[in-house]
């Protein structure tokens, strides 16, 4: 039962993370492969603040601000690049951020990580607090869902799609494509920061190893599998992927084969991505009705 709660909570956190990436990738067509950097920045910001004694809520709000700010900072120069190159640049940024977490020990304690991150005071620590945390996550996910849905259905969202489909047309129609992209990345980064801070307070121990390429692949899978450019897609994708990821631990695997689990999962993810792209690149939920 507790384990089920755990899977749900992680799925919800990843749902928020995926929705944030979907805004950038699915709606605006930006290949941000370094998105995990903002997840990490949110996590570390919130963790550090609450470890220093500040209330968790403050930590979470600050993490959103910091992530959003960093997102905007990255976006302004990086968005002048075309698609592929933006992907590489953001990927590099993701790695640089991880290296930063790893090396700036005075701030982040490097590879040792930050243990003992507190939960919000009204949620108990440990297993007893799980149901409350779940409710907390559900509320937040709902809020984020409603907000992003409102955004994507608005003229702003429509303009994002225009920029995604044809940047020249966007310009010809008087829309400043660059400005829209920057705004999309900023909002996406804010939400990723929120997801990151939730993660930190849930897992209560973070280290640079939590924010690697693996996480990038995971969240990318959530968005791509679930259905880019839809509102339910990332949520569906998150649940599917996280369930697969975590349910493995339930299976009775003899200890000898334990070390095979992670690589095989990795291979499955890679294969799923490839097959998806070959057979059904839009994902499970389609954006437009036929």
């Amino acid at each position, binding site marked *: 039962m507790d384990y089920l709660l755990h899977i749900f909570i992680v799925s919800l956190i990843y749902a928020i993370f995926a929705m944030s990436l979907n805004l950038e990738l699915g709606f605006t067509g930006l290949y941000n492969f370094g998105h995990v950097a903002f997840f990490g920045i949110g996590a570390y910001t919130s963790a550090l603040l609450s470890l220093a004694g500040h209330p968790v809520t403050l930590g979470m709000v600050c993490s959103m601000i910091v992530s959003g700010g960093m997102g905007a900072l990255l976006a302004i120069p990086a968005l002048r690049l075309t698609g592929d190159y933006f992907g590489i640049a953001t990927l590099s940024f993701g790695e640089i951020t991880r290296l930063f977490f790893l090396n700036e020990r005075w701030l982040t304690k490097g590879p040792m990580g930050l243990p003992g991150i507190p939960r919000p005071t009204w949620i108990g620590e440990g297993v007893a607090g799980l149901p409350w945390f779940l409710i907390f996550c559900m509320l937040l996910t709902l809020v984020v869902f409603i907000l992003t849905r409102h955004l994507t259905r*608005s*003229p*702003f969202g429509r303009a994002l799609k*225009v920029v995604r*489909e044809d940047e020249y047309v966007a310009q*010809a*129609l008087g829309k*400043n494509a660059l400005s829209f992209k920057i705004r999309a990345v900023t909002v996406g980064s804010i939400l990723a920061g929120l997801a990151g801070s939730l993660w930190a307070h849930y897992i209560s121990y973070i280290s640079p190893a939590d924010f690697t390429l693996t996480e990038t692949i995971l969240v990318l899978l959530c968005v791509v599998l679930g259905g880019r450019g839809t509102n339910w897609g990332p949520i569906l994708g998150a649940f599917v992927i996280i369930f697969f990821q975590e349910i493995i631990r339930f299976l009775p695997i003899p200890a000898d084969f334990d070390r095979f689990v992670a690589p095989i999962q990795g291979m499955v993810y890679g294969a799923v991505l490839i097959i998806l792209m070959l057979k059904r690149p839009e994902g499970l939920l389609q954006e*437009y009705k036929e």
Partner: protein
Amino acid sequence: MAVNDVSFQLDDTGITGLVGPNGSGKTTLFHLITGFYKLDSGQIHFKDKRISGLAPHVISRMGLVRTFQQTRVLPFLSALENLMAASPGQTGERLSSVFFQPGRVKLEENNNRERAMQILGLLKLKSLDQHLAGRLSFGQQKLLELGRVLMAKPKMILLDEPTAGINPTLIRQLVDVIRELARKGIQVFLIEHNMPLVAEICEKVFVMDSGSLIFSGTPSETRQNPRVIEAYLGREDYGA
């Protein structure tokens, strides 16, 4: 150097044509005017304001709207959405307004939708409003693109080969729309290869060849001008 030494002035109203053999730099000129290409030298003014050097979206907002040679409807948006996206100055496109001014955004959207449906009616595409633009026929897409230009409340429109590749009935429809626009005071500047059409609707014609402006005058003058004829029909190296 695709376009070299072109200087001209367009009158305030009416329909003007831009013609010339393939590769003479007509589309490039459009790119330069609308800010998609940068000028190496010279200036462009629109209604007494300098526009050379400005970004394309800024120029578009000043009322100078264009179409592209290949239809560029947004295939995965419906016809209606394609038009609604083109409306200028939407408050709903501002991030803050989406959340803090929902009433106003909704009002604008409704007005927007009405106007879009009107234009669809004008183009006789009303029944296709929910269809994905990518599913429309080529001719319908061209009409839709014209409609999109209209939505943008232009003061002047640049049409790049609007009748290319469509059947005569549809051409008639297009011509009617273009005439209607000119009547309403919107200035039309169009690139065309369809000479009879140019002769029919344009009051003035500019001719380009190899990147330079070689002639300007009425359609009948143009047809008789030897330099123009030479540009189109016979140079030793052309078509060899």
